[in-house]
């Protein structure tokens, strides 16, 4: 039952009452008065883990992700013969990452994140340059301040680049949320809908949330490797959000390239 290796809280304790974070509404606007199209400032540093082949730390205000890349090396899993390499992505969310403490160890959400990160990164890598080998990517989410999946993808891309793995292009991810002025009823006309790029946690938890979109884009190849859009909206608004994300990816791409060249 109890995990003997860790110290668990006494059973009759409760977390302190009162969450100072208030979710943002359409009326209140973005947290800190941020512009709708403004991406949070990024701090990206590579080679933070000297033992790994490549590593990176990405911080965007409240979101901190660290990624280590090992390989190409012998795969620890028995694989059938392949003339291409494989990647193995593992994501771990630390227990202190969010407002509520998570149980230590992997949970179902980490598995989902890992599958999506793998899908986002796969087309950008030149897998045929390391046949029969595998590149292992370990992502740890230290703090979840919103937009954690794009942060994980961008961090992993930077780590892969710093590891010297041959890549076709950098896979850059960006996400938006769409906030409706009225409640998102299924038939109501969405006349007042605004798109906020790179949402933070309060914006993602907004009661006026109508949908969200995440896009991972590779500028040189002009290809999208991952695109998820949730929420109920007419196709025109989905297309609009898509183009907004692409623009965000392009601006992020410039910033990340700057960080990588500065560190190199």
């Amino acid at each position: 039952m109890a995990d003997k290796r860790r110290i668990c809280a006494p059973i009759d304790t409760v977390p302190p009452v009162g969450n100072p974070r208030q979710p943002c509404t359409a009326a209140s606007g973005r947290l800190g008065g941020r512009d709708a199209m403004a991406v949070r400032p990024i701090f990206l540093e590579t080679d933070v883990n000297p033992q790994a082949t490549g590593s990176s730390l990405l911080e965007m205000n409240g979101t901190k992700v660290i990624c280590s890349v090992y390989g190409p090396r012998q795969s620890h899993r028995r694989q059938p013969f392949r003339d291409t390499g494989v990647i193995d992505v593992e994501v771990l969310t630390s227990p202190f990452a969010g407002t509520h403490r998570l149980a230590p160890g992997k949970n179902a959400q980490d598995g989902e994140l890992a599958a999506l990160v793998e899908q986002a990164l796969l087309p950008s890598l030149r897998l045929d340059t390391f046949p029969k080998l595998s590149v292992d990517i370990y992502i740890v989410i230290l703090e979840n301040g919103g937009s954690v999946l794009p942060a994980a993808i961008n961090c992993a891309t930077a780590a892969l680049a710093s590891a010297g793995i041959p890549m076709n292009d950098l896979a850059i991810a960006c996400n938006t949320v769409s906030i409706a002025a009225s409640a998102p009823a299924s038939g109501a006309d969405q006349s007042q809908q605004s798109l906020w790029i790179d949402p933070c946690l309060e914006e993602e938890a907004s009661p006026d949330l109508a949908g969200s979109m995440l896009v991972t884009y590779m500028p040189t190849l002009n290809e999208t490797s991952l695109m998820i859009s949730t929420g109920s909206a007419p196709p025109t608004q989905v297309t609009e959000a898509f183009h907004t994300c692409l623009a965000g990816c392009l601006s992020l791409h410039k910033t990340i390239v700057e960080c990588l060249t500065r560190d190199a």
Partner: protein
Amino acid sequence: MSNTSLLPLLSSSERQFILQGVASGVRSDGRGRLDARDIILETGLLPQANGSARVIIGNTDILVGIKADLGLPSQQNPDQGRIHCNVECTATVTNAVDSRDADSDAETLGHVITRIFVNSGCIDLKKLCLIPGSVCWNFYIDAMILGFDGNAADAIAQAVRAAFSDLRIPRVVIDTGSTPPTVEIDEDLRRAFCPVDVAALPLSMTMWKVGMSFLVDPTPAEEACASGALLVAATATGRVCLVQTLAGGAAQYSESAQATALPVPRGESTGAQAGAPPVAVVSAGGMNPHSIVDMLSTATEIAQSVARKQDEALRRVAEASTRSHGAGKSAHFVDQSVGFFADSFAATSGN
């Protein structure tokens, strides 16, 4: 799905044959790119579940059961009911040696279904909450893949939608007078009702990118040649609930094997830009943003028409069952070519 266990092993010339067939508009079984196989739909098969449905496309056989019970709402959303989606694909269906390979495919599908039905907001979760912070309805949607013949995601979404139409939960009486407030279930099953507006539920249509063209309803061999897919879930009214890119089976083959020069697709070719070079190299995985936008509108239209057809089939099923008072209701729901509406449905009443 990129996992090798569900998809067959193919030789490179078989793959080339499929790619060229799709490019020329004639697939291995004679269908066109936008022709779907027949869909057989049955509802009300599981007497123990609150709602159930079965969808059969070719040999893809999906059985969905929805069970409802009362439970505690989550801490983050104390005024909402909860819906849990789960997809199971056992090794009996695949030729996987290990059931763990099959499980990872099933997990991906489970996440997709959660996004389509739960995260889209098509089901009003607030209506499912009886006493905020204390009692709410929990729906458990469980999908079993009994057979796999390609296009599992669409089949599961159709089955879940049909299962929701079959869902009946009992009425409850909330006694706010007592402390703590109690909930009493009305035992009279004839007053059971469907809590969900089925017409507003979405249906998914996955467009698979094989070579330079897109097709619907692939066979496992075609999925194994696909470099990616775009899943679009839309309601009958045209609202898009989910757009997601999926990985195709081609990810397991090396790029050099895929860099076969393909002729320019004859006839309808969605996704080819004006001024594209005549001979193109297929890349592994990514999709051109332009084609995504193109595909979005096509897929939305197709999903809309399939949703309307399913609504019609479900309506016939409901009529047939009220006539026969049978426990099992089934409708033969035939979808011949999604380009135009097929006009023959055979509704057979319960067994």
